[in-house]
C-alpha cells in the first residue's frame, strides 16, 4: 500500500501533467520529481496507461457480461419448444436469441428458426401486444419474406416465434463473396425493395432493415427476416412511456437508425425507405454512411440528425483512420473495379438516389419503396433519375411557396400583351428572314432579338429599377409561347429562354428559371458550331439559378465549366470572363465560406474590368464592394471599409440611388461601420438604405430584413435591447415569409436572435433558437462553414452559462476546428472561439490549458477588433475576473492599461 502522503503527491502531479504534451510534460516531470526517481516512475507509468486508446476495463466488463449470457442462452439447448427440438444457437441480438429447431416426427422433417424474446418477462403489456400482432404478421405471404409459422410461450412465460429457417448468407456477405458488380447488387436490392413494398401494402413496417436481417439463399433469392418484429419489441409500443425512451432507442442498431428514430418521432414506411438507403449505401460502398464522421454514440446520433453523410462516391475513395490502401481497394475489388472507377460509377445518379432515400425529413424521401426501386431501374436503363431532378425542384418549390408576386398594374398588363404580340410577329419576321438571310439581315435579326431580350428583361426588377412592372403570368405565357413554337431559330430560342429565365430568377422564381436555363444550355451545346462564349454565359446563368435554389453541388460544377470555357475562349480576357469570375467569387463566399479564394477571383475580375475598353464603372463599383466581403470575413474591417466606400462612391457617380445594388452597398457599409463601432454613421447609412428599399419596393423584401437585422445589432451594442429584439424579430419574420424555411438566411437570423436572448439572460430561448439555426444549417450549408462555427460558438456560450461545461467544450472545440480550417489561426473568429473555450476550461478547473488560451485570444481580439468591440470587452473582463479570483492583481491591472 502506498503511503498517504506519497499518493497525494502522485495524484496532484498526475492532474497537473495529464493534459500536457510530451516535451512539456517531460520538463515538468524533471522539475517536480527532482531526484525522486520512484515518484517519477510512478507518475510516468500512470500517464502512459492513461494514454492508452483502448478501454481495457470496459472490455473486461463487457466480456464478463457476454460470458454470463452465453451460459444463460445455452440452457435451452436440448429442450423442446412446442413440437421442435432446440438444436443450436443460430444467433442473438439485443432483443432475442434465435435457435435452430427441428421437428422430426412420423409425418415429416422440418427445420425452423425459433426466436425467443427477452424483456417480455419484465413487460407483461408487451407480451399481450405481441400475441395480438403476430396474427397480422402471419398473414404476410411473400416468397421474399421469411414466414412466421407459429408462436407461443415457454413454460416461464417467455414468448417465442417460430419462423421459416433460411439457409443462406446475409446480403452484404453474399454480394462480397461473389464479387457482384454494382449492377448486380442493384438488381438484388431492387428485389429486396419488392418484398418491403409488399409488406408496406399490408401496412406493416419493418423498422429494422439492415444487412444482417436480409439473407440471400444459394439460389440468389433474397429473404427478409424479422418483418415487423421490431415494432412488437419497440419501447413505444408500451402504453407507459419511460423517461429512458431515448436511451433505449439509442441502442437499436444506431448506424441504421433514421433521424426520426433517434429523435423518438413516429415511425412510418418512410423509416424503412431511409433504412433501405443505408443498406444500398452499404452494398455500394462496403461501409456505413457515418463511418467517416463519428466515433462515439452521441456523435453518431448527432451526425444522423445533423450531418450529411459522405456521398457514396466519396466514401469509396476515402481512407478511414487505421485503414490502408489495401483495405480500400479490397472494397472496390469486391465490386470488380478500381477505387477510381468505382467512384466514377457511383457519382451522379447513385449518389443522388442514396441521398434522396436518406433525407433527414421523412416527407422529403422517396414517396414509396416503389419509387426508389423505379429510380434505380431508370438508372440501370440509362434514363434520367428522379433523384437528380427532385433536388432543385423541391428546394425551389419550398423557396417560392410564399414568394408572392407584385400585383400587376394596368400598364404592365398592357405591356405584357404587347410583348406576347411582339413575339408572334417577330417570329414570323424571323422565319421570313431565315429563308434568304444575308449578313446584314442576320444583323437585323440579332437586333430584333436583342430588342426582344431587352423587353423581356424589363420584367427584371433590376433593369426596371425596382418598379413592380411585371407578373409571373406574363413570363409564364412568354415561356409557353417559346415552348409551343417549333419554328423559332435555335439561337433566338436559346436567347429567349435565357431572358425569361433571367427574369424569373430575379423574381425569385428559381423553380421556373432552372429548366429554361437547362434547355438553353442544351441548345447551346448542340449548336453547330458551338458558340463557346454563349455557352459559357448560359452555364453561368444556370449555375446562378441553382445557387439561388441552394443546389450548391451542381451549381459549382456548372460555374467551373463556364469559367474554364470562357477563359479558354477569351484572349485577351473580356468583361464576360470577369462577370463569371465575379459570380464564382460570390459563390465561394456564400456557399463555400471560402473568402480567400473569393478575394482572389474578385481581384482578377477587377483587373479585367479595368483593362477592357468601354464604360465599366458599374461592374468595377460592384466588384469593389464585393472585395469588401472577404475582408469582413477575415475581420479586416479597415480594409473592408476602404473597398466599400470606394465602390459606393463610384456607384453614386454611375447610377441613381434607385438602383437596387445601391441600397445593398449602403447596407454593406452600414454593417462594416457597425463592426468598427461607428454606430451613429452606421445607423444613418442603414436608415438611408431602408428608406430607399421601403420607398421604391414598398413591400417587405430580403434586403429590408438584412438592414433591419443590422440596425438590431447596432441597438444591441448600444444597450437598447428592446429595440434590437424588435428589429431582429422583424427581420426573421420577413425572411421566413420570403425564403424557404430551411434557407440558411433563416438560420442566420435565428442565430442573431439567440444572441439577443443570451444577452437578455433568457437561456432557454437562446438555446432553442440556436438549435433551430443549427438544424437549418445542417440542411442548407456544408458542415464546415463559418456560419456553423459561429452558431456552435454561440451554443457553447449558452451551455457555458447553463453550467454545462462539458457540452460547451464540445461545441466550442467543434467551432474552433472549423474556424481554424476556414478562417485560420490569427482570425478574429478563431480568437473569439478560443476566448470562450479558454474560459470554459477555466470554469471546468482546467486552467492549465484554459488560461494561456484565453490570454492569447484576448490579445488577438484586441489587436484585430480594437478595445471597444464587445468581444474584446467580454474576453478582457473574463480574464480580469480570473486573475482577481487568483489574487493576481498585478496581472489584472495590466489588462486595464496594456502599456
Amino acid at each position, binding site marked *: 500500500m502506498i503511503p498517504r502522503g506519497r499518493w497525494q503527491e502522485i495524484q496532484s502531479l498526475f492532474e497537473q501533467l495529464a493534459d500536457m504534451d510530451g516535451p512539456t510534460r517531460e520538463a515538468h516531470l524533471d522539475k517536480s520529481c527532482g531526484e525522486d526517481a520512484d515518484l517519477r516512475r510512478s507518475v510516468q507509468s500512470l500517464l502512459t496507461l492513461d494514454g492508452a486508446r483502448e478501454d481495457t476495463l470496459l472490455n473486461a466488463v463487457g466480456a464478463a457480461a457476454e460470458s454470463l449470457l452465453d451460459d444463460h442462452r445455452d440452457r435451452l439447448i436440448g429442450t423442446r419448444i412446442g413440437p421442435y427440438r432446440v438444436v443450436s444457437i443460430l444467433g442473438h441480438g439485443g432483443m432475442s436469441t434465435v435457435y435452430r429447431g427441428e421437428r422430426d416426427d412420423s409425418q415429416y422433417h422440418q427445420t425452423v428458426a425459433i426466436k425467443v424474446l427477452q424483456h417480455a418477462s419484465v413487460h407483461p403489456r408487451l407480451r399481450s401486444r405481441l400475441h395480438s400482432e403476430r396474427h397480422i404478421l402471419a398473414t404476410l405471404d411473400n416468397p421474399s419474406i421469411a414466414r412466421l409459422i407459429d408462436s407461443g410461450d415457454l413454460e416461464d412465460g417467455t414468448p417465442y416465434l417460430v419462423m421459416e429457417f433460411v439457409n443462406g448468407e446475409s446480403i452484404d456477405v453474399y454480394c462480397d463473396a461473389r464479387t457482384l458488380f454494382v449492377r448486380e447488387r442493384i438488381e438484388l436490392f431492387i428485389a429486396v425493395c419488392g418484398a418491403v413494398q409488399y409488406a408496406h401494402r399490408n401496412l406493416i413496417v419493418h423498422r429494422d432493415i439492415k444487412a444482417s436481417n436480409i439473407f440471400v439463399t444459394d439460389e440468389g433469392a433474397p429473404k427478409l427476416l424479422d418483418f415487423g418484429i421490431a415494432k412488437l419489441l419497440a419501447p413505444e409500443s408500451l402504453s407507459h412511456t419511460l423517461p429512458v425512451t431515448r*436511451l433505449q432507442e439509442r441502442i437499436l442498431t444506431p448506424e441504421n437508425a433514421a433521424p426520426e428514430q433517434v429523435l423518438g418521432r413516429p415511425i412510418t414506411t418512410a423509416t424503412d425507405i431511409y433504412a433501405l438507403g443505408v443498406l444500398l449505401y452499404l452494398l455500394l460502398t462496403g461501409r456505413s454512411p457515418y463511418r467517416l464522421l463519428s466515433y462515439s454514440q452521441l456523435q453518431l446520433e448527432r451526425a444522423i440528425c445533423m450531418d450529411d453523410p459522405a456521398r457514396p462516391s466519396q466514401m469509396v475513395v476515402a481512407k478511414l483512420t487505421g485503414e490502408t490502401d489495401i483495405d480500400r481497394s479490397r472494397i472496390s475489388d469486391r465490386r470488380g473495379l478500381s477505387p477510381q472507377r468505382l467512384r466514377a460509377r457511383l457519382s451522379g445518379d447513385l449518389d443522388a438516389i442514396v441521398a434522396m432515400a436518406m433525407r433527414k425529413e421523412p416527407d422529403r424521401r422517396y414517396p414509396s419503396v416503389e419509387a426508389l426501386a423505379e429510380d434505380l431501374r431508370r438508372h440501370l436503363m440509362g434514363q434520367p433519375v428522379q433523384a437528380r431532378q427532385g433536388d432543385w425542384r423541391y428546394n425551389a418549390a419550398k423557396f417560392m411557396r410564399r414568394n408572392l408576386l407584385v400585383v400587376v398594374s394596368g400598364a404592365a398588363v398592357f405591356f405584357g400583351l404587347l410583348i406576347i404580340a411582339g413575339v408572334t410577329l417577330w417570329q414570323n419576321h424571323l422565319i421570313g428572314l431565315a429563308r434568304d438571310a444575308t449578313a446584314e439581315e442576320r444583323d437585323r435579326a440579332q437586333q430584333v432579338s436583342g430588342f426582344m431580350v431587352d423587353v423581356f428583361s424589363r420584367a427584371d426588377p433590376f433593369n426596371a429599377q425596382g418598379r413592380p412592372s411585371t407578373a409571373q403570368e406574363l413570363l409564364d405565357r412568354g415561356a409557353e409561347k417559346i415552348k409551343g413554337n417549333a419554328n423559332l431559330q435555335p439561337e433566338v430560342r436559346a436567347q429567349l429562354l435565357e431572358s425569361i429565365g433571367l427574369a424569373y430568377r430575379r423574381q425569385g422564381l428559381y423553380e421556373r428559371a432552372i429548366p429554361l436555363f437547362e434547355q438553353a444550355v442544351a441548345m447551346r451545346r448542340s449548336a453547330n458550331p458551338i458558340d463557346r462564349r454563349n455557352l459559357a454565359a448560359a452555364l453561368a446563368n444556370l449555375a446562378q439559378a441553382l445557387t439561388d435554389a441552394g443546389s450548391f453541388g451542381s451549381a459549382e460544377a456548372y460555374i467551373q465549366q463556364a469559367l474554364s470555357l470562357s477563359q479558354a475562349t477569351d484572349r485577351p480576357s473580356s468583361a464576360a470572363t470577369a462577370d463569371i469570375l465575379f459570380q464564382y467569387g460570390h459563390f465561394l463566399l456564400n456557399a463555400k465560406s471560402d473568402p480567400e479564394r473569393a478575394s482572389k477571383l474578385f481581384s482578377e475580375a477587377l483587373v479585367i474590368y479595368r483593362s477592357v475598353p468601354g464604360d465599366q464603372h458599374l461592374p468595377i463599383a460592384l466588384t469593389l464592394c464585393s472585395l469588401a466581403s472577404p475582408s469582413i470575413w477575415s475581420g479586416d474591417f479597415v480594409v473592408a471599409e476602404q473597398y466599400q466606400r470606394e465602390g459606393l462612391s463610384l456607384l453614386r457617380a454611375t447610377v441613381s440611388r434607385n438602383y437596387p445594388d445601391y441600397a445593398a452597398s449602403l447596407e454593406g457599409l452600414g454593417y462594416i461601420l457597425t463592426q468598427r463601432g461607428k454606430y451613429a454613421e452606421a445607423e444613418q447609412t442603414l436608415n438611408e438604405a431602408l428608406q430607399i428599399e421601403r420607398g421604391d419596393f414598398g413591400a417587405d423584401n430580403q434586403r429590408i430584413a438584412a438592414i433591419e437585422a443590422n440596425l438590431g445589432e447596432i441597438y444591441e451594442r448600444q444597450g437598447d435591447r428592446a429595440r434590437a429584439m424588435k428589429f431582429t424579430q422583424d427581420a426573421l419574420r420577413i425572411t421566413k415569409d420570403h425564403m424557404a424555411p430551411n434557407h440558411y438566411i433563416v438560420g442566420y437570423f435565428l442565430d442573431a436572435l439567440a444572441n439577443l436572448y443570451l444577452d437578455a439572460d433568457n437561456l432557454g430561448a437562446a438555446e432553442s433558437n440556436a438549435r433551430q439555426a443549427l438544424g437549418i444549417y445542417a440542411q442548407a450549408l456544408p458542415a464546415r462553414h463559418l456560419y456553423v462555427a459561429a452558431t456552435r460558438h454561440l451554443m457553447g456560450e449558452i451551455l457555458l452559462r447553463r453550467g454545462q461545461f462539458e457540452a460547451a467544450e464540445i461545441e466550442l472545440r467543434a467551432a474552433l476546428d472549423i474556424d481554424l480550417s476556414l478562417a485560420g489561426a490569427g482570425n478574429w473568429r478563431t480568437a473569439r472561439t478560443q476566448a470562450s473555450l479558454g474560459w470554459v476550461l477555466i470554469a471546468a478547473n482546467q486552467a492549465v490549458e484554459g488560461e494561456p488560451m484565453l490570454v492569447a485570444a484576448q490579445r488577438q481580439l484586441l489587436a484585430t477588433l480594437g478595445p471597444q468591440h464587445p468581444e474584446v470587452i467580454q474576453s478582457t473582463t473574463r480574464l480580469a475576473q480570473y486573475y482577481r479570483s487568483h489574487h493576481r492583481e498585478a496581472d489584472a491591472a495590466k489588462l486595464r492599461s496594456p502599456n
Partner: protein
Amino acid sequence: MQVPANFTQLLTEWRSGQPQALDRLTPLIYDELRRLARGYMRAERGSHTLQATAVVHEAFLRLIQANVDLQDRGHFFALASRLMRRVLVDHAKSRSRLKRNAGFRDLSVSDSEQKAGSGEVSVIALDDALESLLQLEPRLARVIELHYFGGMTYDEIAAAVGASAATVHRDIRLGKAWLLSEIGGAAK
C-alpha cells in the same frame, strides 16, 4: 413473472442486508444483460465504442421503471452498480472454478474468457484492484464503479457524488490508470 416494482423492492431488501434478495434479483438481470453483451460485441476495436456500460445503465433504468425519486437516483445508481459488479464477478468466479475442475469442458469456455486469460484483463482482476483502490482513495473507487458497472455518464456521476463533471472526468482517468497499473503489477 416479476413486476418492475418488485425489483426496486428486492434491491431495497438487499441493501438492508438480506442476502437472499440477491438470488431473486439476479435472474431479473439476465434479460437486460443480453443487451449489454450485444453492446460489447458492437464495440469494435478502433471504431466507435458503443459503451457496454451504457447498456448496463439502461438495463437498470428499465428494471426500476423510474420508480425512484430523482433525489434518490444517485444512491440508487450506486446500489445498482454494486449489484451489477457483484453479479458479473460472481459468475466469472464460478466459471473459472468450472474451468479449473473440468479440463475437458474447455470447449464451453467462451471466447471472451479465453481472451481474458490471454493478456487481457478479467473482471475478477478488476474487482480485486478496485478493492485496493477503495482502501487507497475511496472516492476514486466509487466513481469508477459507477462509471464501469453503472454505466453512468460523467454528468450523472457528478450529480451523484457532488463534484463537477470535470473533476469526475479527471478522477476516472486517474483511477483507470491506477487500476491498470495495479492489475499489471499483480500479473507479474
